[in-house]
C-alpha cells in the first residue's frame, strides 16, 4: 500500500516537472521561431512593389535608402549608386498630375488602363520610382522592379531607426530600444542598490526587533502593489519633479523611468538581501567581534561579503524585474524610439515597445515578427545577466 502511494507520488512529481519543463521549452521555441522569421524577409509591405525605369542602373535598395528617398532626404539617384538624375516619387494618387482628365477617361472602371498608364509614365520618366500594389502591375519593356534588401541580423541589431509601420519600407533597427532598455534598467539598479542594501542592513542588523517587525510588512506590501499604480505615481509625482528639477521641456524621460523602476525593485532587493544578511551564521559575527572589530567593521568586512551572493541574487532579481517591467515604464519614459544621448530625454524600452505595438501588428506580418524578435532579445539579455552573476558570485566567496 505504502509502496503504491510512493510510486504514485513519484509519478506525479515526475510528470508535473516534465510537463512544466516542456512547456517552458515550447514557449522559448515558439518565441524564437516567430522572432527568427523576421530575418531574410523584405521589409516592404506585402503585395507592394517598387517600379522604376529600365534605364535606371539601380536594382536594389536597402530599407534605409528607401526611407530616405521617400522622405525626400535623397533627391538624386547618385546617392544610391545610380545616374545623375533627380528622384521623382510616384504614388498612385499622383497620376492626375501627369495625365489630363480626358486621357484618364474610364480608369475608374478599367483598372487595367490605369496600370498601363503607370507603367507608361515610369517608362517615360528616367528618375521616377513608383510605389504601387502588385495587382496594379503591368510590366512593359521600359520598366523594371527594384528589389528591397531583406532584413539582416546586422541591420536589425545595428539599425538606428525603429519605424515598424513606415511606408514604403519599414525600419527595424533595434538599437534605440536596446539602449533605452539598458540605460533605464542600469540606472534603476544604480539608484536602487544603495538604498536597498542600506535598508536591508538596517533591518537585519541595526533596527530593534519591534521596528523591524513594523518595517518588514510595509516592504512586503510595496511588492504587492500593481505596476500600473507605480506608473501612475510616477506620472503624477516623478515626471513633473524631473521636469522641474532639470528644467526640461518634458518630464517623461529615461530618468523618470529609472526612478520608478528603482522604487519597484526596492522591495525585492530589500527582502532578498535582508534574508541573506540574516542568514550569515552567528559564529561569523562572533568571530569578528571577538577579535575586537566594531559592529560596523563586522557588517562591512564579514557580513556583507558573506551575504554577497545573496545580495547579488537580490540585484539580479531587481534587474530582472526592471528589464522586464512594462506598464510603469510605458507610462513615464516618453516612449521615443531614438538613440538616447542623455538620461534626460524620452526613451523607449523593449517591453514597452512590445506592449504598445503588439495589438496593432498584423499576425504573421513583419511587424509582428519583429516584436517577437524583440522578445527573443529580452530573453537573451535576462539569460546573460543570470549567467554573468552566477559566474561572479560563484568566484567571489573566497576572495578577500
Amino acid at each position, binding site marked *: 500500500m505504502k509502496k503504491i502511494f510512493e510510486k504514485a507520488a513519484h509519478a506525479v512529481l515526475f510528470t508535473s516537472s516534465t510537463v512544466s519543463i516542456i512547456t517552458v521549452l515550447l514557449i522559448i521555441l515558439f518565441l524564437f521561431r516567430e522572432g527568427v522569421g523576421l530575418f531574410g524577409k523584405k521589409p516592404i509591405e506585402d503585395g507592394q512593389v517598387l517600379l522604376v525605369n529600365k534605364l535606371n542602373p539601380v536594382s536594389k535598395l536597402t530599407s534605409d535608402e528607401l526611407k530616405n528617398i521617400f522622405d525626400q532626404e535623397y533627391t538624386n539617384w547618385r546617392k544610391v549608386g545610380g545616374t545623375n538624375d533627380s528622384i521623382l516619387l510616384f504614388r498612385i494618387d499622383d497620376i492626375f498630375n501627369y495625365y489630363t482628365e480626358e486621357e484618364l477617361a474610364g480608369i475608374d472602371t478599367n483598372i487595367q488602363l490605369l496600370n498601363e498608364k503607370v507603367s507608361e509614365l515610369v517608362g517615360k520618366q528616367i528618375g521616377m520610382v513608383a510605389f504601387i500594389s502588385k495587382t496594379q502591375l503591368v510590366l512593359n519593356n521600359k520598366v523594371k522592379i527594384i528589389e528591397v534588401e531583406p532584413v539582416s541580423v546586422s541591420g536589425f541589431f545595428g539599425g538606428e531607426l525603429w519605424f515598424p509601420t513606415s511606408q514604403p519600407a519599414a525600419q527595424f533597427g533595434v538599437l534605440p530600444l536596446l539602449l533605452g532598455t539598458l540605460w533605464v534598467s542600469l540606472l534603476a539598479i544604480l539608484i536602487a542598490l544603495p538604498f536597498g542594501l542600506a535598508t536591508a542592513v538596517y533591518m537585519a542588523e541595526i533596527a530593534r*526587533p519591534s521596528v523591524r517587525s513594523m518595517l518588514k510588512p510595509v516592504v512586503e506590501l510595496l511588492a504587492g502593489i500593481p505596476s500600473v499604480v507605480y506608473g501612475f505615481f510616477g506620472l503624477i509625482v516623478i515626471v513633473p519633479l524631473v521636469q522641474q528639477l532639470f528644467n526640461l521641456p518634458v518630464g517623461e524621460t529615461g530618468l523618470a523611468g529609472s526612478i520608478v523602476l528603482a522604487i519597484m525593485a526596492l522591495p525585492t532587493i530589500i527582502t532578498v538581501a535582508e534574508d541573506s544578511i540574516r542568514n550569515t*551564521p552567528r*559564529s*561569523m*559575527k*562572533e*568571530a*569578528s*567581534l*571577538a*577579535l*575586537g*572589530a*566594531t559592529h560596523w*567593521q563586522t557588517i562591512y*568586512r*564579514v557580513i556583507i*561579503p*558573506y551575504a554577497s551572493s545573496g545580495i547579488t541574487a537580490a540585484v539580479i532579481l531587481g534587474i530582472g524585474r526592471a528589464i522586464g517591467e512594462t506598464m510603469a515604464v510605458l507610462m513615464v519614459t516618453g516612449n521615443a524610439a531614438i538613440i538616447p544621448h542623455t538620461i534626460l530625454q524620452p526613451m523607449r524600452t523593449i517591453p514597452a515597445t512590445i506592449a504598445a505595438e503588439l495589438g496593432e501588428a498584423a499576425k504573421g506580418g513583419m511587424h509582428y515578427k519583429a516584436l517577437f524578435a524583440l522578445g527573443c532579445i529580452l530573453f537573451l539579455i535576462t539569460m546573460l545577466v543570470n549567467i554573468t552573476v552566477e559566474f561572479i558570485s560563484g568566484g567571489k*566567496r*573566497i*576572495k*578577500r
Partner: protein
Amino acid sequence: MIESKNLNLYYGQYHALKDISLSMPPKSVTALIGPSGCGKSTFLRTLNRMNDLIPGVRIDGDVLIDGKDIYKDKKMDIDVLRKNVGMVFQKANPFPKSIFENVAYGLRVNGVRDESFIKERVEKSLKQAALWGEVKDVLKKSALALSGGQQQRLCIARALAVEPHVLLMDEPASALDPISTSKIEELIHELKRDFTIAIVTHNMQQAARVSDYTAFFYLGELVELDETKAIFINPKKEQTQNYITGRFG
C-alpha cells in the same frame, strides 16, 4: 588576572549563573568543567562580554580583568576588551577568506595598516599555533579548504595575532580527532607561558592534562575551584567527587 565577584546572569527569567566568585591567576590555565547546561560557556562568554549580543540577557556582579571592572568601568571600550581577551569557539569558525586574511583580520580591524608588520605578525601567530609549517606555502588559499583540526588552530592563530592577555577557549577540541586534539593540548602548554587561559572542557582527562586550576560548575553554581591535582585526587565536595568519578553528567 581574572576575577569575578558575585556574578549573576539571567537569560530572561532563567537564572543561568548564580553568584559566581572566582579568580584565575595570570599565566595559568584554568579548566571549567561540569555537566552540559551548567553554565560553563555562559561564564566564559561573560569574560569578553559576548553575552551582550544575546537579547534579554541581564548581568549583575563584577568581572575584573587586569583590575578593571569590564561591566561597570565607564571608560571600558568593548572593542578594546575583546581585543585583549581573545576567544576560540567550540566549532572552528574561520572566515571564508584566505588563510592569511583570517589571521590578519584582527590587526586590520584594529587599525594596523603596515603590511610588512601584518605579514610578520601573521607568520608569528601561525608559528605559535603550530600551523606555520603546514600552511606557509598556501597562505592565499581559502581557509575553508583546511581540515577541521587545522581550521581550529587557524582560529587560535587568529586570536593570538592581536596579542591578547587572556585566551578563552570553549571546548576547542571537542570536534576534533585525537591527533588534532593532542596538538591543541600541546599548544595550550606552550601558550600558558604568555597568556592567561580559561578553557571549557567536558573531557576530564583533558582538564587534568592541560590545566593548573579546575573549576567545577553545577546547575549554574561554582561548586569548587582548586588546583587541578587537588580536584582530581582529593576533591572537597561530594558533588565534585561524583562528577569526576563519572557517577553523573
